[in-house]
């Protein structure tokens, strides 16, 4: 277990300062992200809300994906619209004041 020469003649360079510095940098970054909602979840919720205002959708069939490449990142939005999609009526959209907004989320 004990390394005698090291015990008497001093140790290698201490690693604790490296640990300390790495932690400080990492935690400064992580604390900044804390409390922010996940970006993809946020996009998914807003896209779903927008499209649902016009077409009846299955929320499970709205998929938002992000790919990060070296040069280009892509945002892929995959929404499955039912074969006989029920289009929300204009009345339900409620364009005028005082109308009943039945279809609004």
């Amino acid at each position, binding site marked *: *277990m*004990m390394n*005698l020469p090291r*015990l008497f003649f001093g*140790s290698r*360079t*201490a*690693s*604790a*300062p490296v*640990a*300390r510095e*790495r*932690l*400080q940098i*990492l*935690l400064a970054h*992580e*604390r900044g992200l*804390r*409390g922010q909602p996940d970006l993809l979840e946020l996009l998914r919720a807003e896209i779903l809300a927008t499209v649902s205002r016009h077409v009846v959708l299955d929320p499970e069939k709205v998929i938002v994906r992000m790919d990060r490449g070296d040069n280009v990142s892509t945002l892929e939005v995959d929404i499955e619209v039912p074969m006989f999609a029920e289009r929300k009526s204009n009345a339900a959209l409620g364009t005028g004041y005082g109308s009943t907004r039945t279809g609004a989320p």
Partner: protein
Amino acid sequence: MAKVLVVTSGKGGVGKTTSTAALGATLAQMGQKVVVVDFDVGLRNLDLVMGAERRVVFDLINVVQGVAKLSQALIRDKRLENLWLLPASQTRDKDALTDEGISKIIADLRTRFDWILCDSPAGIERGAMLAMRYADEAVIVTNPEVSSVRDSDRIIGMLDSKTVKAEKGERVEKHVLITRYDTARAARGEMLGIEDVLEILGTPLLGIIPESQDVLRASNVGSPVTLNDAGSAPARAYVDAARRLMGETVAMIVPVERKGLMDRLLGRRAA
């Protein structure tokens, strides 16, 4: 006024259960009426560390689901009459814990005890979130090591946002308990020092528990280390920590290496 204290860490294996048992036993010895509650559903161990594993009949989930009354599930310690254990379920799924159920149990425990110590499971899932949810105070058990400090920082963030106190705009009183502190390695610069950990976490120190064979020996026989070997270095450090929880001012003792050269040459004594 009863106090709910969560013993938490994020990372596993840092000493949450050992610390819950030792702090609970010490507070009970100081005359406080204490219950230690195991939130680690499916992987309970507080019963084993407390030496009560063969006396478990009903558990936390049974009480949540109304199968048993709280008084039926509470197990009184055989050594300390002020100390009680509420075990977790070993067989049920952790999803059996509900916020509503825990809320009722904590409210009930508050009427019966001075201290409710919640032993959190590792991780940040339901059991861990519910263990901290109703806390007034928190002990964040941290090893002086990068992954433990990082996880503690995350847990501190959750204590400040996901607890009932935080949601009401109040603060959970937080303390860092440094465990498995190896003086010799810290002196050689191989381990984060106390100041490093405290500065990074920005949270006051409750105590420093030295790495010790006494801790393993105590868990082997099913006794909190403070009862099993009251004179040992970790036991004394836990007693000091408990006194600080009680509001006493106790000078912080950084454990020192007591080994002589012969001990070093002959290696450590086996547990």
